[in-house]
């Protein structure tokens, strides 16, 4: 086989390494953090985030440089792409990673996480896996990237040792994700069997030459892409493969949730676009009905689930399910315009979702409480800045102009109509109406509802069965081990209803968190008022992907 012999002859050139320079920088930063962890005294571990941040910024600068002057070719014998779609995805992932790193120091300390070095290293490695997955030009790299990011995220999800919910999240994510990865891998193997290639361009050429003209798809190919669809749908949390999402998003450290809800989506959707929209584009008739059904189910199911949630973190998890549905609309549409719309939506989703999770993170207390809807009552009067950021981000998620969320929804639905998928656009628009309801409910609570008097911890939080709130607060701060600047607020006695409510969060919001929130806020508003640049970049990226 020609392919095999060329692999064995292959020697990487300097060009090959240059084309994966952003990934290399992130990898270097991860290793550097691990080393620095040994050198920095325990008290100054927060600085590790800065080391990681510098790496991420450097990688972003290099990515931007490659956008301007890179050759856009593949590296390592057609395994990894450095086209503009890859660079676009890299930039969004790096943005998410940077904000995740900025969110972390304050949150990590409050939650009593002591393994700073491992935490930041794993976060950077997860970003590396996402970047790899998004730049994959071969099924093998798709899978390799997926595993790198997933392994890191399993551990990160379970990182709060003192919190059973976090352990549960990591374990659940691990088991279910392995299960889904098996489907994906099996699907890839069958696709390889059907087409004789793992390189995406080769698959594209094969199906374009053999399958598409006759319309006679081999069962092997159908089974392969069906199983791959299952794997991808799990990763992007589409219904009916979404069940893990709320549990993991709620249980994981919120800084990780913020980062992974965005980064995983970007990586998985760009890889999905590369595999389905591009490589398997000629046989779209074979896969689009399945993804069509999944998209419809996801839009309806995600929004319906979200409407009934009382916990804001859980609501945001289901909102990410619903958003996956809108993105799938773009995938099903399959035109170049839809691909650009998908990228626009991903970028929009990154800014507004990071902002929303960032506020939740800033409010969450050391015992993991403080994210129920009632805790947001009257927030605007206690924490005006946080309430304002959350309000803007939720309005953006609801798709109200002039925020970036509106630009994203506009792009996706417009592309769907232009691409002849009117029904998907209508379903999307109608389910968005449902979405308004639960986003606005939080805004309503923050601005228009009186804070409630003290009450016991909400019944359904997975705290030790039902001991009095005082015991749980005491337990968590003792097991947490780190002195938290937080009075025993949950111990408030009923006798004094005017006393501090359970929702009160006297802890300090760190400057890094503020900076990250400000970045997310500015991006959400600025890209909404002037989305021209974003649309331009996304269009170029889509062109590079479809040649």
């Amino acid at each position, binding site marked *: 086989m020609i392919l095999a012999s060329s692999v064995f002859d292959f020697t990487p050139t300097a060009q090959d390494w240059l084309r994966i320079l952003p990934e290399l920088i992130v990898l270097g930063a991860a290793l550097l953090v691990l080393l620095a962890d040994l050198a920095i005294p325990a008290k100054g571990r927060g600085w590790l985030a800065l080391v990681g941040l510098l790496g991420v910024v450097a990688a972003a600068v290099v990515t931007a440089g490659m956008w301007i002057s890179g050759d856009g070719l593949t590296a390592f014998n057609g395994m990894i792409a450095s086209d503009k779609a890859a660079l676009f995805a890299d930039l969004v992932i790096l943005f998410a990673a940077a904000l995740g790193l900025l969110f972390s120091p304050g949150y990590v300390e409050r939650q009593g996480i002591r393994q700073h070095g491992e935490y930041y290293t794993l976060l950077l490695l997860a970003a590396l896996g996402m970047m790899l997955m998004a730049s994959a030009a071969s099924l093998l790299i798709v899978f390799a990237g997926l595993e790198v990011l997933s392994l890191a995220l399993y551990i990160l999800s379970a990182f709060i040792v003192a919190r059973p919910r976090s352990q549960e999240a990591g374990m659940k994510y691990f088991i279910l994700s392995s*299960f889904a990865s098996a489907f994906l891998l099996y699907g890839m193997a069958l696709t390889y069997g059907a087409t004789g290639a793992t390189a995406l361009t080769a698959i594209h050429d094969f199906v374009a030459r053999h399958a598409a003209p006759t319309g006679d798809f081999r069962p092997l190919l159908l*089974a392969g892409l*069906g199983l791959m669809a299952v794997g991808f749908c799990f990763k992007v949390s589409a219904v009916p493969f979404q069940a893990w999402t709320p549990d993991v998003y709620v249980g994981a450290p919120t800084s990780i949730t913020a980062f992974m809800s965005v980064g995983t989506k970007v990586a998985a959707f760009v890889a999905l676009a590369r595999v389905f929209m591009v490589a398997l584009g000629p046989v779209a008739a074979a896969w689009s009905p399945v993804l069509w059904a999944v998209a419809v189910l996801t839009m309806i199911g995600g929004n319906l689930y979200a409407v009934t949630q009382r916990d804001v973190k859980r609501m945001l998890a289901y909102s990410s399910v619903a958003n996956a549905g809108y993105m799938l609309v773009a995938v099903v549409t399959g035109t170049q315009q839809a691909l650009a719309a998908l990228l626009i939506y991903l970028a929009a989703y990154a800014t507004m979702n990071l902002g929303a999770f960032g506020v939740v993170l800033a409010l969450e207390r050391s015992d993991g409480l403080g994210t129920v809807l009632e805790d947001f009552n009257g927030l605007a009067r206690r924490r005006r800045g946080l309430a304002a950021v959350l309000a803007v981000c939720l309005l953006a998620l609801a798709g109200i102009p002039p925020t970036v969320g509106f630009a994203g929804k506009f792009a996706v639905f417009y592309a769907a109509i232009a691409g002849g998928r009117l029904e998907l656009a209508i379903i999307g628009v109608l389910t968005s109406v449902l979405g308004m309801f639960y986003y606005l409910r939080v805004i309503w609570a923050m601005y228009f509802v009186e804070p409630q008097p003290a009450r016991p911890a909400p019944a359904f939080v997975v705290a030790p069965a039902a001991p009095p709130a005082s015991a749980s607060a005491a337990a968590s701060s003792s097991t947490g081990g780190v002195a938290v600047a937080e009075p025993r607020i949950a111990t408030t006695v009923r006798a004094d209803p005017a006393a501090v409510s359970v929702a009160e969060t006297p802890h300090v919001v760190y400057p890094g968190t503020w900076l990250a929130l400000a970045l997310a806020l500015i991006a959400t508003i600025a890209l909404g008022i002037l989305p021209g640049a974003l649309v331009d970049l996304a269009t170029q990226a889509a062109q590079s992907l479809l040649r």
Partner: protein
Amino acid sequence: MLNLTVFTLALPLAGFLILGLFGRRLPRALIAWIGCGTILLAFAAAAADFISMLGTAQTSRVADTTFFNWVASGSLRIDFGLLSDPLSAIMLLVVTGVGFLIHVYSIGYMADDPGYWRFFSFLNFFVFAMALLVAADNFLFLLAGWAGVGLASFLLIGFWYTRPSAVAAATKAFVVNVIGDFGLLLAIFLLFKTFGTLGYEAILYGNPASGHSCIAGPFCPAPLAIHPAGATLTAIALLLFVAAAAKSAQLPLHVWLPDAMEGPTPVSALIHAATMVTAGVYLVARAAPLFTAAPGVLPIVGGVAGGTALFAATIACVQTDIKRVLAYSTMSQLGYMFMGEAASGFSTGIFHLTTHAYFKALLFMSAGAVIHALAGEQDMRKMGGLRRKLPTTFWCFVAGGLALAAIFPFAGFWSKDAILGAILERASTTGIGGWYVLYAVGILTAGLTGFYTFRLIFGVFLGQYRGGEIAPHGAEHGPPEPAAAPASRPNGRGREVASRRDPLARVHDVGAAMRWPMLILAVLAVIGGFYGTPFSNWLGDFLAPIAGTSPDVSGGTLALNIALGLAAAILGIALAWLRYGARQASFAPTRNPIVVFFENRYYVDALYDHVIVRPLLWAGRLLRRDLEGVALDGGTRGVGGVVGWSSGVLRALQTGYARNYALAIFLGATLIVVYYVMQR
């Protein structure tokens, strides 16, 4: 020609930002100055535009300034530009002019309210959004203003957020408005797909001066070669009308407007009578070429509008809350505006919009003055005999009422006459029975309007006072702002203090801040119709380049129309006099099934509750409990508790619900595989 429209937008926006960010710390006087001053300057800018427009030749009264490029990528190109043309000039004058008067009125009305700064910042935001809506030069930024207006309305209806009813009303308004927003969004997608652009000029008007062509409509001087299918135009126009109906409370999307009266009375005056609800009327007039070109749409508009006018008028006849009477009256009058537009009298709709803005704002302000004087009482069964105590309010109310009832020569007479004339003309030229029916509905509604308006006036101001002692202070106000204590709103209900000397001893008429806006509007309600009489229709000619010429009504048709309209209104007033004016008004409950049917608002709200709201909630609960809660979650909550105190995390997980999640994945995968097998 001047185009200072940007100031009409920027000043209220600046006011909103300043008050929103720093209002809490500013003294009240300064808040009032900023709040009203920005709107007055915005009005000045709008007036300057208007005057310079009058000095320009009629054919070139368009100034379109592009400020920046929102998106330019491939075929997609949308600019942010502001348009100054006759239609937007009239709308901006009404929005900022009436808006300014209501701001001044609010200084007095909200004087005791702890949320003073919040109120003015929201009001400024509203004026900004509304100005954007009417001044945008393309459909996309129209949508931005459209959504902004909805948001402002949500904030202001729910202003007294401690009242559960206010919260519910605000939510209802928002949901209905969002339905309209998405109708508009879909219309925009279709417009873009069909025409490849969203600018008004390119789609609707063309520009003779620059030689630009346009695509749709009869006013188009140089039509392009694109001829979209009639069905597409119909779909676009219908979607636009869905949006208009939601914003302007037409059937069946009307349910939010009466409930919106939960907001403070200046809000009712500004948003739910004078400006916001007119956005739909504006949209139809703006898209007049489209509506005219789209086959079969205008009769639908007419049918919906006529139905709404009659429906709302009948309900208004049996309401006892004075603000609700006015709310239903607003719905009914909006129906008139759409009826005029449906009969191709687009400028008559705008004409009635302007006069209605004067007299309805006046009526709401007067109603607010009554409510203010009676410490929050809104039920007319507990009023009566207030004429001597509130003379200014009484005469203002009468002026507004005569205008609403369309009595010669008050403002409403001319505009309603123009609308009904257009319908009658349409009926006699086409000879289609449907237009005659619509005309009959219009006349019947005119009679009902006279009845409910004067039932209200007689019930409130004549006869004997039927209420109790008035609490010493305050109107319908919110709780103290940094709410430390549970809300104890000083309202009419705390009048157990029994001192039966004169229950109205403490009642006083309005102060200066409230009186002057009312007097100005009262003057406008009297003379505001003279710019559109059938003898010299200045407004119709002014709007003709945009909205087309209205059907020409003259001779016998004109005389017949005036006679019928006046007769119906006077008959209605006479009935009201017999029932409520000549003797002590009685509002005793009745068993009359028709009245009960009207009192229950035709059971539309109940129907929606049973058919839409409850099933949705039920489905959501079912999903949460049975799918998430049991089938998929395996009861995370229950098991989670066990996990917590037994620390058997791993064991519980592996034997517990993670399995169910995996099962769901497996089932999904099986479904997909089965699908492929079935395919073969």
